């Protein structure tokens, strides 16, 4: 595809700079093998990642599946206007922002804490075992995780047994945790932490290995104990990595995930569990209201794009690692 379009589009330029264009094609000819090994994937990328953007046009139409593209009625921003006047969409937006903020905050705090503590374990074998175990939930599918979480939180599950056993609850008064809407965000946050706390420590532990050991020696001479060294040497040592990751994660503020909310959500907690992704799925697939669904999805992607772009630039300006 690239070989065909480039000469057609850039012929005037080629007339002005015949040397450069000829050089380009001469080199490409020499690098035939590399082109054969990469251009098919460029075509794949165009078809699977860029072509779907065409579908965004549906958000500006009063889409009727039976009609051809040229026969659709164009209605401008009507669907977007409807979305921002719709109570359900505003609630969905609130849930999305709340859950991604909870995830962002607790994800960071718990992972950094665990990394700091793991770094203090001197027994390498024990440390390895803890790390291996803590990575486990990350590799398990959300379906399996949701199945386990649901069992644990059910009226005859571990949490209720524990509460009864400790005397906080009377037998027979067991709580149906997933049936109480207000609890959903907490359950979601705790589940996400359980699943990814170990995995998220990898980056911080890697950053800790780059801290200059003389800093610890200096702190020791100043009389710092292990806890103080952890707070005043290790933590500042990973500060730059933490800030960069934090900025970049703000770019994902509208990406609160889909699977945990969908799998743990039910009719009772829907007011708190439904986020944009589920809204898109329900309107789009279940009700076949493509226009409204795409408008909601498009809103999410465009805002995410802007946020990510800004976040990445901010991280770049700080002279640190960035998204790529």
């Amino acid at each position: 595809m690239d070989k065909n379009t480039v000469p057609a589009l850039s012929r005037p330029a080629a007339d002005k700079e015949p040397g450069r264009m000829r050089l380009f094609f001469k080199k490409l000819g020499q690098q035939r093998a590399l082109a054969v090994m990469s251009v098919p994937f460029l075509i794949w990328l165009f078809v699977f990642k860029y072509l779907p953007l065409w579908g965004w046009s549906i958000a500006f139409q009063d889409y009727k599946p039976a009609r051809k593209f040229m026969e659709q009625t164009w209605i401008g921003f009507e669907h977007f206007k409807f979305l921002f006047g719709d109570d359900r969409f505003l609630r969905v937006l609130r849930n999305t922002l709340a859950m991604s903020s909870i995830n962002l905050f607790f994800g960071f705090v718990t992972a950094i804490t665990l990394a700091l503590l793991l770094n203090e374990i001197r027994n390498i074998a024990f440390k390895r075992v803890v790390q291996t175990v803590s990575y486990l939930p990350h590799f398990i599918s959300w379906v399996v995780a949701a199945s386990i979480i649901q069992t644990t939180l059910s009226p005859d599950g571990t949490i209720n047994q524990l509460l009864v056993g400790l005397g906080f609850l009377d037998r027979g008064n067991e709580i149906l945790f997933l049936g109480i809407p207000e609890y959903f965000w907490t359950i979601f946050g705790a589940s996400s932490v359980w699943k990814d706390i170990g995995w998220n420590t990898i980056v911080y532990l890697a950053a800790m290995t780059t801290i200059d050991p003389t800093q610890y020696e200096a702190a020791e001479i100043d009389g710092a104990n292990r806890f103080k060294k952890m707070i005043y040497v290790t933590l500042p040592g990973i500060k730059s990595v933490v800030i960069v990751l934090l900025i970049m994660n703000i770019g994902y503020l509208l990406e609160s995930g889909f699977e945990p909310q969908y799998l743990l959500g039910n009719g009772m907690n829907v007011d708190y569990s439904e986020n944009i992704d589920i809204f898109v799925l329900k309107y789009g697939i279940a009700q076949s209201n493509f226009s409204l669904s795409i408008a909601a999805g498009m809103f999410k992607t465009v805002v995410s794009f802007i946020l990510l772009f800004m976040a990445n630039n901010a991280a770049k300006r700080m002279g640190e690692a960035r998204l790529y």
Partner: protein
Amino acid sequence: METAAVHKKKRKPPISSSTGDRLFVICNYCFMIALMIVTLYPFVNVLAVSLNNAQDSIKGGIYLLPREWTLANYNYILREATIFHATFISVLRTVIGTVVTVFCSAMLAYTLSRQDYVLRKFITVAFIMTMYFNGGLIPNYLLIRDMGLVGSFWVYILPGIIGVFNLIIIRSFIENLPESIIESAKIDGAGDYRTFFSIILPLTVPVLATVALFSGVFQWNSWFDVFLYNSSDASLSTLQYELQKILQNSNTTTGTSSLDGMIQGATGGQQNAVTPMSVRATMTIVASVPIIMVYPFLQKYFVKGMMVGGVKG
């Protein structure tokens, strides 16, 4: 880990550690043990239920060990045609998807690691741009539908051939290989295909192992594409999707693991041999065991891969 090694080398006499330090270390070890219990207990508990007599499990009180040992639940899963076939499809998509992804990502990453390749910049930017946006659920669905991939096995493989993250970690691994290896291959007259197949592929095995793990786990764990594209075609269902359906069923009823119609109907003949609770536990184990068996052995590799992708980029 290096800091730990440095500290060890100093051979600091342990007597010098203060009471505060010792308290901190004890608390730290206790915390780590608690973390491991919280992580592992749910799995052990599900394993115990899956190995326990189904009728007995209803009474509750199964914690770490089964009360009445039995393999009946696993037997049922093996004999139940739907679940057995779904497991087969899961294995198939995991194997094919992983091989295709690893091979294609490595090939593309090699071309993008060649500094002199004229399309290098253009292709790299085109791929990285897709990290910032995607068409979204419905446009992707419409594309797949219009391509005629709905109701086909290939809908599991084709859309995910190359992931940008995988591409980046393989590329930076190749770029960190000694330049002289590729140079000497060139001098020996090896073309780009030869260089890739006989030099790059064998040398990148550590990073390809990481990509294989990520891709294999992704394929094995997928259920949403089954739900979206192939939910009406039972012959293309996967294990995770079957588990998801059971989960959704118990979700919409009471939220507890009460008997649900599907299993009851399925067990009809062999009355009460299994219950939805025991089948769900058994499927949960079957769905997670392959992963539990594989990932610890690749830990060294994926930790390195995450460091490359996460910190250095």
